[in-house]
């Protein structure tokens, strides 16, 4: 097949309309999982085919696209999705969070505050937060429709019983506008507070599971917890060794085979922006641009 055979952003208009309808429904019912007829995409499941379809249905020619995977723009997954849209939609791309109008992400929410002119698209592997304890889809659907969410707390109870604290650190369940319980995709729970009251539109796409859900701007999102074990967004108790940031989510990086390691911002754009502004961490060197 040649590139000419592709429609703008790969999907045909019929499919985009179907996906947009699902997105609108998701926006109208925040946190509710809307079924959609997921299409075959020229990449394997697990590579974010749900997110890619949502992004394809949202993109306009004037959009500026950023793609991140675990906070970084340069991983294989991020690079290949970015290339895909460069080729099929010819949109401008960027690594700068502030410049992007559409951001597709896997496993992170950018550190920089998002704006009302941005759409954040999450890649979702398992959209159903109740599946851990209730594998039957007919039953989980009923539980959502009847707001029977006691089981979510059983999961958290089990965590505390086994580990002394809520050990769930990724895909930490949330309640949306006091109604639907939602899986925020495998972002670290550190990012959970950023889900709530964001000016940006947040869309979630699960390709293999054929579900789309959404958080419209300024949606109230609460992480589930117990009165005596309140939710705590945690991170490694360090500053970034490159930019010195104390409030960003950190990755631990092994630096040699003698036990050497460092902590660096997982959001590479955030880290670079800080270094360019002259911030220097424990192991960092002043950036060229900042020196100039």
């Amino acid at each position, binding site marked *: 097949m040649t590139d000419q055979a592709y429609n703008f952003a790969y999907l045909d208009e019929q499919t985009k309309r179907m996906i947009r309808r699902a997105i609108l429904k998701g926006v109208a019912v925040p946190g509710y999982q809307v079924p959609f007829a997921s299409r075959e995409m020229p990449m394997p499941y697990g590579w974010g085919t749900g997110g890619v379809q949502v992004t394809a249905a949202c993109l306009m020619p004037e959009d500026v696209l950023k793609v991140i995977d675990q906070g970084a723009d340069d991983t294989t997954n991020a690079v290949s999705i970015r290339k895909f849209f460069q080729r099929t939609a010819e949109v401008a791309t960027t690594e700068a969070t502030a410049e992007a109008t559409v951001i597709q992400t896997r496993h992170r929410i950018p550190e920089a505050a998002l704006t009302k002119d941005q759409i954040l698209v999450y890649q979702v592997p398992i959209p159903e937060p109740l599946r851990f304890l209730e594998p039957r889809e007919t039953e989980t659907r009923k539980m959502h429709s009847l707001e029977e969410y006691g089981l979510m*707390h*059983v999961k958290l109870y*089990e965590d505390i019983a086994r580990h002394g604290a809520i050990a769930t650190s990724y895909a930490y369940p949330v309640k949306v506008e006091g109604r639907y319980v939602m899986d925020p995709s495998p972002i670290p729970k550190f990012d959970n507070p950023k889900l709530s009251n964001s000016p940006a539109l947040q869309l979630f796409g699960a390709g293999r599971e054929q579900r789309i859900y959404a958080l419209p701007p300024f949606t109230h999102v609460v992480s589930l917890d117990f009165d005596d074990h309140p939710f705590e967004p945690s991170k490694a108790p360090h500053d970034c060794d490159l930019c010195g940031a104390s409030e960003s989510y950190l990755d631990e990086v092994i630096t040699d085979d003698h036990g050497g390691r460092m902590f660096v911002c997982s959001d590479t754009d955030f880290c670079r922006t800080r270094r360019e502004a002259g911030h220097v961490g424990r192991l960092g060197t002043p950036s060229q641009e900042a020196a100039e």
Partner: protein
Amino acid sequence: MNAMTETRPLLSVRNLTKRYGPRIGCADVSFNLYPGEVLGIVGESGSGKSTLLSCLAGHQTPDTGEVIFQTAQGPRDVLQMAEPDRRRLGRTDWAFVHQNPRDGLRMGVTAGGNVGERLMAVGARHYGDIREKATDWLGRVEIAADRIDDRPRQFSGGMQQRLQIARNLVTGPRLVFMDEPTGGLDVSVQARLLDLLRGLVRDLGLSVIIVTHDLAVVRLLAHRLMVMKSGHVVEQGLTDQVLDDPQHGYTQLLVSSILQV
């Protein structure tokens, strides 16, 4: 018993019928259950006991009939209730103990989580309180407190059944359905479970509908008895009367067959 007083029935069943295609599950069943009463349903295998119980508990939809429950808001026909209300009833006022503990327990969840689930389902959000209640209930069903973080898989059949009972009773249900709760257990284990059940029924003043094919179980637990055959109720009355002076030929057979065992 209360049956003779003016108390209103807790549960009033009228002309309940359930067919499976041309086959009769249960037919034209009517009875009253009064608060604090234990009603035994006996009959040979295939007589319609489980069908009746699952229709009462809302697990199956009967073809015709009424199941009127005395709710906090007054008498309501459970069969006419909206599903959310019926399900809420199922995890607050009602409890259901299955014959096979696997059907009534979450096998992948700890004993404490199993007991705590109903508490959390009705809004408990304090881990310490939930755990305390779970520990208390494990004690009441004679499961050592240090087993609270074990999963039911690690329990014997008798323990699993006791755990299922604790999980059901923790929210103080007003009506408990039990389908052959002692079935599938060794005789000595059965005896211990029966003893435990008898104590709980007495101490908590539970209202119970218990299905069994074992007349020894109803002799020990039930105030009143209903005998079923081919889906129909052929005889009902006070347990001792029915067992000691059976009127219906089928009941006479049933009673004599146990004597021969």
